């Protein structure tokens, strides 16, 4: 792939660049501390870390409006943080506490922030793609200018849900951006073993929509690609399939030691790490001084530490009433909470 030109990203102002760097650091530090808290058994269940993939969410968010819909699967800690949800309620949800974004009902895989238009947090591979079709359809139905971004992994494109949703999205020209985070492994299975076509973006040709490729280890390249797709969607020109080539440094989940790939491969990918790349760009563009970046990094350490303290000190959800609450909006009283 040719080196990205940063066409649109060249126009980002200094504060936007600094904010992108701040988010990258936040996502990285948050997930590192998640791994630690998981080892301490403060976080339970399945826990999928975003480490390595930060540029995708951060670059994407810089190109979106606050009222755009964002929908994802279960590797979504970084994505909800990039949406602007404070780390405290996210960490509290991972701890299962009542102050969490889902009051302890969702956990790591089911994070929501509806006021910020983060619509989950879904646990079945590919099932969020038809949902994103639905929110984008609602935007078209209402004639608003909201765009839906849907994140999924490269393994999800082999689900029927992907094909069915993309066909309808193209057919009805809904304002959606389908972002495939191609980290090359569906759990332990390499894409070469699971997919006849390993260039995911080429699948767009089956639906007659643009299939774009972006370096998912490069925040500004992601911004460029998503901005273009969002402008198209807002102009009524329909959906885009965007393949973001990225890599997760950790296993599929906290219980995966990732022995199916070599140390050399991981080290090689780390050379493309999005954080130093963005840091160098910020300095080169004189968007911030070295001391300011150090201050940001120190503040993030404190913010994440504070999120852990908040989660730790928050109360657990309690009581049988809470167990039965939120099954129905209108339970009517039969067959529930006897």
């Amino acid at each position, binding site marked *: 792939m040719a080196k990205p030109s940063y066409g649109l990203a060249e126009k980002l102002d200094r504060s936007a660049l600094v904010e992108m760097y701040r988010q990258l650091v936040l996502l990285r530090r948050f997930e590192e501390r998640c791994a630690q808290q998981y080892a301490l058994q403060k976080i339970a269940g399945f826990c999928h870390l975003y480490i390595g993939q930060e540029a995708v969410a951060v670059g994407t968010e810089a190109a979106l409006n606050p009222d755009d819909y964002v929908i994802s699967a279960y590797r979504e800690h970084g994505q909800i943080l990039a949406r602007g949800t404070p780390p405290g309620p996210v960490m509290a949800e991972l701890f299962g506490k009542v102050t969490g974004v889902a009051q302890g009902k969702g956990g790591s895989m089911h994070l*929501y922030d509806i006021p910020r238009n983060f619509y989950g947090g879904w646990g079945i591979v590919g099932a969020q*793609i*038809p949902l994103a079709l639905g929110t984008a359809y609602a935007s078209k139905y209402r004639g608003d200018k909201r765009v839906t971004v849907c994140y999924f992994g490269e393994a999800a494109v082999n689900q029927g849900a992907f094909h*069915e949703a993309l066909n309808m999205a193209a057919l009805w020209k809904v304002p959606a951006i389908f972002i495939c985070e191609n980290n090359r492994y569906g759990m332990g299975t390499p894409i070469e073993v699971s997919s006849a076509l390993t260039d995911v973006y080429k699948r767009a040709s089956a639906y007659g929509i643009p299939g774009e490729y972006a370096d998912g280890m490069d925040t500004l390249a992601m911004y460029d690609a998503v901005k273009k797709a969002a402008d198209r969607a807002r102009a009524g020109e329909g959906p885009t399939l965007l393949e973001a080539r990225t890599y997760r440094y950790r296993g599929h989940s906290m219980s995966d030691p990732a022995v199916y790939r070599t140390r050399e491969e991981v080290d090689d990918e780390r050379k493309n790490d999005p954080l130093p790349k963005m840091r160098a760009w910020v300095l080169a563009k004189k968007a911030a001084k070295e001391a300011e970046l150090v201050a940001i990094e120190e503040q993030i350490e404190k913010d994440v530490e504070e999120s852990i303290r908040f989660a730790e000190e928050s109360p657990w959800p309690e009581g049988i009433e809470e167990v039965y609450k939120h099954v129905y909006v209108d*339970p*009517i009283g039969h067959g*529930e909470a006897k």
Partner: protein
Amino acid sequence: MRELTFRDALNEALDEELTRDPDTFLMGEEVGAYNGAYKVSRGLLDKHGPKRVIDSPISELGFVGLGVGAAMAGLKPIVEVMTWNFAILAMDQIVNTAAKMHYMSAGALTCPIVFRGPNGAASSLAAQHSQWFEAQYAYFPGLKVIVPGTPADAKGLLKTAIRDPDPVVFMESETMYSWKGMVPDGEYTIPIGVGDIKREGTDCTIVAWGKALKIALDGAELLAKEGINCEVVDPRTIRPLDETIIVNSVMKTGACVVLEEGWPYFNVGAQISDIVQLACFDVLDSPVIRVTGADVPMPYAKTLEALARPDETSVVAGVKTALNVRS
């Protein structure tokens, strides 16, 4: 009151609710230009236009998921599945997404959607098109399941379902679409979770819903000629289930038969039997009797199909067993 077919009663409900609420839309295979595979949506495209009545591709998982996502975003979709047999492909979106989003988000998300279409066996459609699904969907907390047995109930309950804030599974029947019944004039709705006594009686309670309701009533007629006076209770909704109306009836009659066209194992009747034995143990003179279809995939030949399905004579036999009456 006027006489309407089941089909036209449903059509009126859809038409009235599409007119009433601009956030509603009807989507499904052949619902628009074709006027509905079973003509339930006849005329709705012409009247409401292509924004409100949308023909979908044959992609059950995809368009059901679209509806769930649109409901999550605040619209009120009515998604037609051509039959519930095909909705097996969409079960992930109904069960894993629609039924769970309110709970998983601690109330932040709601899913006001209706999934509707025909359920059960029609006639000589063979195994893959002749299945009953109410027990499956009623199993999952988060879903409401409605199986109306008359045109009047179908209209009133569909209107309620469309206005309901939760995901509703609404089950109709190919065979019943042309059946007629008296339907009230003007605007009315029927609450979810409230059953109805379709025939009053004193000797034995028969619980039946959907198409089985007519079989139950026909069986009750035959029994009446023998001096056995049955009460037929139609729960109308399977979840939430009107346990009270069933229990009160059995407390009065002292005997209970549950009629169900579907299979015998792990069905709705098993749940109702459990409710009745717990609540009415002291008044029951014999066990709750379940009358069901045969425990086989549905055969095609009409001779075999007839043997695999319960009819009014099965009801008569069931009631006599429950009452310890020799035939």
